[in-house]
């Protein structure tokens, strides 16, 4: 086993604080260091191993800390782990933990991570994120999740209080990137065993993050204050962070303008251009690691027409992505000609012919391809587009209906509420359906793995060459060219209609600093933020 420091950040982590709020030269701190963050829905769970949504993760990153954190540019920096070693076969990681404390003063030990990881994989916990351990390729994870092996057999072991060993079944190039995810956070065993399911209530919750939970009114707000037991509390500037639920985005915006909120990371649809004009110092759009697409049902239950590559190409060509992005969404999104979000770390833009043509050329080619496939005025192609209830999805579906009408395709729109839409997708009860995928970690495999034969892949695309490329990527020294080739293959086979890459059109108070401007995951840490005097 060789001692390796793979990232410069980790080496630096030995000498200086990992990453902390640090006012720039000449910046004067405001007297009041508070931040009110808008969230759309109630926080469903503050249990790191039961949470399933993004807003919950945002809160959990303040209340707990994993082995690694992300900095404002998305680079992985040390969290509880001060350094680590990896074995030559890349299957064993050994993490050395720093002196850190829980908010009740107990030390954070390797055993707390072991307990947390076993807990999420244990069928008794019934965590909806148990699959995360499988994604990380932790040894025995699939068997533990299935209940075939005991949680104690999971590939994680405390060598001593400060040394943690993780064993994998396959080299996992993105492993470090998964270690900032709440599913991998440690858990306070004593508290959980004493309090049961209610351990996350304010007053009971014990965390190891930079903040502690003072108050939580479901559907109203969660109030967090600085945790003095946090190892880097000396460099934490914001004293109070509130997660304020406002179910209506327009009211959220009004309340932000009235000064009740400081950060709204999704402005109401269509408002962003106006906000940019009126509040140029507050309206910002940042890339966000999700991609929007229309999926083809390529399974046996899908329409025969879609099994013809020419038809799929025609449908993809005919979609005018510029209109969708510039006229419908207007929030800084980018047109998509491939699947992986363009800003994903380590992603090389593939060479996609279609992206270089003008829209007129695309439409012309689409018409020719459809005619070649045997469709025309006498025998028009009829398809249904399924989408889930939302004004935005509806607007896009109507636009696509028009684009496809131009090439002679008759489209029927089918709208379902979210759960029904998802259920139909998973049972291949659709023809063409609206879909979006968000990255689990900042590396292209989180996107491209979706279309593997054994991936989530609701349209049931299957291509042996594609699967092989992705298997090769797992062990490649530099997987980037392989991901690029995979994307090119995906579009050559037109497994989907890529539509756009997400962006977050936001409103952020001008005096708030330290929020992630260039982290496509948009994971943020209040401990890195501060407010300057205006």
């Amino acid at each position, binding site marked *: 086993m060789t001692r390796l420091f793979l990232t410069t950040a980790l080496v630096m982590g030995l000498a200086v604080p990992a990453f902390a709020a640090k006012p720039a030269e000449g910046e004067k701190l405001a007297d009041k260091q508070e931040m009110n963050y808008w969230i759309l829905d109630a926080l469903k769970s503050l249990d790191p191993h039961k949470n399933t949504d993004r807003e919950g993760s945002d809160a959990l990153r303040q209340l707990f800390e994993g082995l690694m954190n992300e900095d404002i540019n998305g680079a992985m920096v040390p969290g509880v782990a001060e350094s680590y070693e990896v074995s030559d076969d890349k299957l064993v990681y050994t993490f050395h933990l720093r002196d850190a404390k829980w908010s009740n003063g107990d030390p954070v030990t390797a055993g707390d991570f072991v307990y947390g990881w076993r807990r999420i994989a244990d069928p008794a916990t019934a965590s909806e994120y148990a699959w995360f351990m499988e994604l990380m390729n932790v040894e025995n994870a699939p068997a533990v*999740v299935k*209940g075939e092996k005991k949680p104690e057999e999971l590939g994680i072991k405390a060598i001593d209080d400060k040394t943690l060993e993780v064993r994998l079944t396959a080299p996992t190039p993105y492993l470090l990137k998964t270690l900032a995810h709440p599913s991998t956070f440690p858990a306070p065993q004593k508290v959980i065993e004493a309090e049961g399911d209610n351990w996350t209530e304010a007053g009971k919750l014990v965390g190891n993050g930079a903040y502690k939970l003072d108050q939580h009114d479901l559907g109203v707000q969660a109030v967090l204050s600085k945790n003095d037991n946090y190892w880097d509390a000396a460099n934490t500037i914001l004293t109070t962070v509130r997660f304020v639920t406002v179910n209506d985005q327009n009211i959220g915006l009004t309340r932000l303008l009235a000064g*009740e909120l400081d950060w709204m990371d999704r402005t109401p649809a269509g408002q962003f251009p106006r906000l940019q004009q009126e509040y140029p110092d507050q309206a910002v759009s940042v890339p966000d690691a999700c991609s929007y697409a229309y999926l083809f049902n390529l399974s046996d239950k899908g329409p025969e027409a879609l099994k013809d590559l020419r038809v799929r190409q025609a449908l993809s060509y005919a979609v005018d992505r510029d209109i969708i992005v510039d006229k419908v969404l207007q929030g800084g999104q980018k047109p998509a000609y491939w699947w992986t979000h363009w800003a994903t770390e380590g992603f090389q833009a593939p060479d996609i012919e279609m992206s270089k043509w003008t829209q007129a050329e695309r439409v012309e080619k689409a018409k020719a391809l459809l005619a070649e496939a045997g469709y025309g005025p006498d025998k028009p192609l009829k398809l249904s587009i399924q989408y889930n209830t939302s004004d935005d999805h509806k607007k896009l579906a109507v636009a696509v209906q028009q684009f496809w009408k131009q090439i002679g395709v008759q489209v029927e729109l089918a709208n379902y509420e979210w759960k029904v839409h*998802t*259920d139909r997708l998973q049972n291949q009860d659709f023809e063409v359906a609206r879909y979006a995928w968000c990255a689990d970690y900042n590396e292209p495999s989180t996107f491209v793995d979706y279309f593997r034969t054994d991936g989530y892949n609701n349209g049931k695309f299957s291509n042996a060459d594609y699967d092989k490329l992705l298997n090769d990527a797992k062990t490649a020294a530099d997987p980037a060219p392989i991901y690029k080739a995979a994307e090119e293959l995906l579009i050559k086979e037109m497994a989907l209609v890529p539509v756009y890459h997400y962006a977050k059109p936001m409103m952020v108070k001008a005096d708030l600093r330290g929020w992630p401007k260039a982290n496509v995951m948009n994971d943020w840490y209040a401990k890195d933020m501060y407010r300057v005097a205006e």
Partner: protein
Amino acid sequence: MFGFILRRLAVAIPTLLLLIVLSFLLMYAAPGGPFTQERALPPQVLANLNAKYGLDDPLWRQIVNYVWGIVAHFDFGPSFIYPDRSVNQIIAAGFPITLTYGGIAFVVAVAVGVSLGVTAAIRQNTWLDYCAVGLSIGAQVLPNFVMAPILVLVFTLWLGWLPGGGWGGPIFWIMPVIALSTSFMASIARITRSSMLEVLSSNHIRTARAKGLPERAVILRHALKPAMLPVISYLGPAFVTMITGSVVVDMYFSTGGIGRSFVDSALNRDYAVMMGITILVGALTILFSLVVDLLYAWIDPKIRY
């Protein structure tokens, strides 16, 4: 009278049971489940979840277990979507909130609505009547999902007088109360006015006036009580609707009430929360229709149980 009350309460039990069974069946008929999500769960994880929540039992056993939990332990089960909380906790946190703003809104709606209706009726076809009718029609046609954002815009952004949402002291109650009471107030005013007009033209009022009673006494002592009968039959269900909250109010003012939880639970297939709130609303509806019947007997001497 007591026999009547007992009989009604005895009927309430099978009614509630029927409500539970029907809601259960309807819920299961809806496609998707609490754990349906964009990223399909691996089958073994789904199986673990179903086992944990007892969803792998046959339907009849789930219903029996559920009813037994309520009868034996007053336990409405764990929430599927809020894994840290039980349904009892969710209702215990949210119901006092809707009860507060709903109760105040009810009092406001009745006080203002009845006053407007009576004023309009006794000053029929004068400008007062036109104003009152105009006001109530205006209040009726302005839906609360339009009014709520306008209230926040005016009182929070422009004037800066009231917090735009959240829950705390009385200052947080004002906008929810206005938004919730307006349309009820309008309905009450309309019903009161037409009922009052009818009563005012009846024989016993003519007699009261003929024996020289002052108009004030005629209205308050002889006309108001019978005129209230149709209003009260409206108020029973209206009261339950108001205290169990409104989605719009909860959504726009982030009150944390159970109105929003109810709709959310249906959309998220949070079976347990949905059942819990359905039973709460059902039980309250049964209770208050009984109260309405008793009030009838008190107001109208002709009614005897």
